[in-house]
């Protein structure tokens, strides 16, 4: 695989790294100024959250954090292209996509602190757009056939909804990838597969992950179309997803490969000392936020002062959200071990909960800490 989007003839792009752009294509996007500014806000908020998360992880408040800088456009554009009724099953690293759909920062952070998620809605019908997602998976790739099933169910219920599901260049090697795409093709399900090719799966570069020229090439093997897009161009990822979502709504799944680059470490547990011939600098020059700022300025939508104030506000929100999330997480108590293990719990759950609470009672919580 080649490394840069421009090395592929058929890689879609609207914004070049230097901020120059295809004005006609922009016009055709039919995005309001508000919407264009909104995507910027999401990217900035994602980066601010990222920085907060990293800091808190270093301070020992978070056990774990996944890095996201430079990847913002790859998932913010796609999230923006969804309708409110659509579903979005992204992975943890895609903070920007969650933010773009309106998920509260606190909620995002709480997942990192507690490992589970909560919904406010009582039923699917009452869900906010950001709530239209399944809980995060941990076993990479398993979300793909699950999303196929989810959208199959919604289709059977006569809903006109599309599901966007993301997977990485690494996750694309799992058998679930194959099953998910093949089911979607065979059953004509309204699913857009967003392949976030950031060229690394922990320490494994994409060249060792697969000999394929592009991931988009895999679509043909499932009977539908694939598209390759510059993942650092938020307008291009938006446009391609929009098109894919339309196709999916008409019963034709789509595989969208979004080519970007993981500049940071894999996660806070990763020493990131294994890369050979990396060119982080070249990718920093292709930063998705920088080029979008140049565009926004050129279009007169935002200026340097705005950038500054938006950033500051985003940092402030990230700080507040983190504080509040940490506070909420503090309140976890031992009996939560048994919360919702079952929807209709057998007796032993109560028995064991009592056993635990009795132990905690007699020995004190401290005896359980290490």
């Amino acid at each position, binding site marked *: 695989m080649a490394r840069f989007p421009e090395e592929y003839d058929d890689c879609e792009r609207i914004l070049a790294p230097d901020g120059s752009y295809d004005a006609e294509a922009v016009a055709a996007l039919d995005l309001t100024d508000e919407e264009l500014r909104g995507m910027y806000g999401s990217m900035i908020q994602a980066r601010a959250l990222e920085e907060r998360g990293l800091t808190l992880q270093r301070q020992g408040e978070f056990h774990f954090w996944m890095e996201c800088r430079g990847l913002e456009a790859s998932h913010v554009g796609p999230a923006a292209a969804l309708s409110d009724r659509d579903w979005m099953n992204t992975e943890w690293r895609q903070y920007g996509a969650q933010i773009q759909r309106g998920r509260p920062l606190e909620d995002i952070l709480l997942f990192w602190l507690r*490992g*589970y*998620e*909560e*919904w406010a*809605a009582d039923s*699917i019908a009452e869900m906010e757009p950001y709530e239209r997602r*399944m*809980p*995060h*998976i*941990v*076993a990479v790739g*398993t979300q*793909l*056939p*699950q*999303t*196929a*099933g*989810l*959208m*199959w*169910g*919604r289709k*059977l*219920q006569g809903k006109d909804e599309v599901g966007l599901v993301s997977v990485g260049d690494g996750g694309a090697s799992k*058998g*679930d990838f*194959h*099953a*998910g795409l*093949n*089911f979607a093709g*065979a*059953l004509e399900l309204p699913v857009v597969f967003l392949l976030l090719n950031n060229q690394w799966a922990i320490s494994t570069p994409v060249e060792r992950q697969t000999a394929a020229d592009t991931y988009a090439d895999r679509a043909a093997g499932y009977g539908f179309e694939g598209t390759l897009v510059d993942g650092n161009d938020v307008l291009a990822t938006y446009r391609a997803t929009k098109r894919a979502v339309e196709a999916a709504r008409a019963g034709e799944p789509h595989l969208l490969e979004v080519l970007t680059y993981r500049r940071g470490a894999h996660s806070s547990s990763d020493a990131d000392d294994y890369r050979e011939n990396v060119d982080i600098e070249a990718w920093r020059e292709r930063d998705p936020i920088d080029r979008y700022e140049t565009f926004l300025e050129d279009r007169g939508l935002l200026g340097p002062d705005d950038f500054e104030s938006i950033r500051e506000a985003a940092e402030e929100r990230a700080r507040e959200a983190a504080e509040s999330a940490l506070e909420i997480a503090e309140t976890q108590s031992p009996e939560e071990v048994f*919360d*919702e*293990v*079952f*929807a*209709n719990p*057998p*007796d*032993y759950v109560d028995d064991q909960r009592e056993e635990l609470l009795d132990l905690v009672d007699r020995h004190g919580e401290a005896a359980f800490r290490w």
Partner: protein
Amino acid sequence: MAAEKLTLVEAVAEAIHDEMAEDESVVLLGEDVGRSGGVFRATEGVYDAFGPERVIDTPLSETGIAGAAIGLAASGMRPIAEIQFMGFTYAALEQLFTRAARMNARSRGQFPCRMVLRAPFGGGVRAPDLHGESMEAIFVHHPGFKVVAPSTPHDAKGLLTAAIRDPDPVMFFEPKKIYRSFREDVPEGTYETPIGEAAVRREGSDVSVFTWGASTRPTQEAAEAVAGEGIDPEVVDLRTLSPMDTGTIVESFKKTGRAVVVHEAPRTGGLAGEITALLQEEALYYQEAPIERVTGWDAVYPLYELEDFQLPNAARIEEAIRSVVEV
């Protein structure tokens, strides 16, 4: 309620049929479950009744079947997924363990994983490798599942109905050896046999024999045989393996003070160990003899003619009963 004489496999098909008629959100998916009615004909007639929208012959991927069922459940549907044989559930285990079992907990109740995964289990049909597996213990060990294994047509229908209605993921294992071994009266119309309740198949006072699935047959035979010798065994068919009916198990043992556990699964790490530990903890002071296990050997499942030597048979069970009673 009127009743009809059904085999176990017919009772399975009837439960599916009736629940699909009652609840529009029930769908059936799996390899060959539709037009062919399943390799064991356990879904016979269902496709004709409900058509290709609700009865889906999927691509050949157990990962895909389990994954899709999980997603269907999240969407609000109630999927019944068939895996052709328990030996083919292995490709579905990642989906089941990492997701089906955890979804309710990880979403704090927002997305219960209402699904049934059906698979024939156990040996005795002279089929190739992987067609004789009894690995129910691994599903019992992994938290988050309910695990059911009926041994009669009546229970098969009632338990499957209960499983489909249960909000949690239910692994429903059908004893293929006795799919067609006998018929019994099965009520028409829907009814539930509660998940989590064992059935005492024979009351007795001398020894408790715990078993499930196809092994209940040789166990009952053995019990009748030793009854002729003046031993009075109680036969408890667990029916549900998770949650186990610990009340019935412990009560029976308190009465008899002696126990034999019979299962087809390999001995080591099988559920006989769990039952023994339970009796230890709850009723040691009632115990009068070592608890014996009559199980499959710890061998790679032997095929065709050799199956006969792997599965617990009446002779072995009788011997175990005599041996614990004689102590």
